[in-house]
């Protein structure tokens, strides 16, 4: 076994376009800490060019297969593609089974398609905490399209709306999917709704149902009206139409000047998240805070003071100027 290169050397190799170095840097980002921040500091100026498309929807909707087909079409247009596929970490064992590559076989020997599987790890639901950072890295690596596939369970896939320029919600005509989507708030975040498995007998009526629901939304003049596309990843149909829909949404963002404001929105949300993380970590690590809480909790237990009062007192203790 040879010694593995340090971060400086990795960054050099990364700049030369070495996949192994990029992959290694992603691992360091996943593991977090100072090294991760160092990497981001050094590549951040090269980000901002990649167009980000998020894919979400219930498990089994065929997101990976759809991504596989889309990648084929995007490659015909000479896009350089990064794919981030997130699968859940088992809360019991901490292990994860990352199987999305299996459906992306068609591109596994294409060096312009960089697929990375991420486990959700500490995150509560559909997306990994380091997704933003991994997108940055792929962006800085020269990928001009980054496709992000998230686990379609729980509420947290809504986070995808903060990370992607275009959000594609993938549904299947199986029973109650549309209703599930409404419950989960997916109707609010989707720019494009895909009814996959179009060969299914109920696909068209399910698509109409989605369309009807979308009509009920009050969309202000000049805003994007979500589209519904019927596809079949298996039969390779509707993919061209989906590509067109994505491109149309992109044009809409660019023409309306939304693109720049969106970038700002994404960056603001990242700063906020990073700040929250940092504050939380510092609070947790602070001995003073811990001692203070331990002491005051007794009074909360006895019902002498409310939890809110403890927080107010704590605020005074760690006040930020």
């Amino acid at each position: 076994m040879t010694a593995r290169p340090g971060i400086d050397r990795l960054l050099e190799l990364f700049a030369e376009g070495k996949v192994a170095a990029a992959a290694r840097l992603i691992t360091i980002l996943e593991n977090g800490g100072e090294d991760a921040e160092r990497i981001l500091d050094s590549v951040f100026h090269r980000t901002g060019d990649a167009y980000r498309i998020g894919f979400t929807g219930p498990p089994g909707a065929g997101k990976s297969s759809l991504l596989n087909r889309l990648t084929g079409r995007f490659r015909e247009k000479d896009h350089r593609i990064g794919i981030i596929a997130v699968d859940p970490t088992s809360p019991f064992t901490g292990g994860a089974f990352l199987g999305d590559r299996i459906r992306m076989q068609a591109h596994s020997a294409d060096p312009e398609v960089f697929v990375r599987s991420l486990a959700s790890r500490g995150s509560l639901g559909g997306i990994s905490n380091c997704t933003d950072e991994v997108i940055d890295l792929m962006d800085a690596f020269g990928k001009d399209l980054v496709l992000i596939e998230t686990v379609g369970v729980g509420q947290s896939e809504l986070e995808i709306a903060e990370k992607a320029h275009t959000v594609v919600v993938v549904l299947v005509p199986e029973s109650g999917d549309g209703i599930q989507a409404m419950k989960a708030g997916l109707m609010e975040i989707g720019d494009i709704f895909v009814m996959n498995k179009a060969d299914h007998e109920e696909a068209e009526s399910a698509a109409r149902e989605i369309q009807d629901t979308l009509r009920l939304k009050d969309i202000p003049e000049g805003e994007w009206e979500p589209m519904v596309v019927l596809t079949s990843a298996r039969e390779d149909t509707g993919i061209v139409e989906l590509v067109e829909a994505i491109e149309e949404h992109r044009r809409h963002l660019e023409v309306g000047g939304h693109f720049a404001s969106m970038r700002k929105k994404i960056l603001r949300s990242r700063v906020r998240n990073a700040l929250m993380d940092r504050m939380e970590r510092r609070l947790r690590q602070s001995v003073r805070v811990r001692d203070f809480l331990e002491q005051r909790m007794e009074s909360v237990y006895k019902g002498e003071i409310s939890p809110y009062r403890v927080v107010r007192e704590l605020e005074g203790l760690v006040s930020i100027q």
Partner: protein
Amino acid sequence: MARKVRVLIAKPGLDGHDRGAKVVANALKDAGMEIIYTGLHQTPEMIAESAVQEDVDVVGLSILSGAHMTMFPRVMELMKEKGAEHIVVFGGGIIPPEDMDKLKEIGVARIFGPGTNTGDIVTFLRERFPEE
């Protein structure tokens, strides 16, 4: 966040016997590792590229078709070309003893034959990659 052991489990070659690969993948997942499963009928090129992109610590190849003396060396050669010679390779399947020796010589870390306890594989990986 602690470092996680990342393992790529792949089935090179043309046979479809994935019972062993899946049992091992499940056992390693239950032991808290992150398993990238690439499925059946993989060429050495596909396996090496996946291993590199996923920056795995270790690659496990399951071969029952008799093509092991072609597949193992080729995967290792390709990973080396891509600058990933540090990735540990282990294997399982129907592999005659004399071939096992030859594979060890070219750097395959371990071959687990039929009847292996999955606990032994977990122990082997834990010893190589203690979680921080």
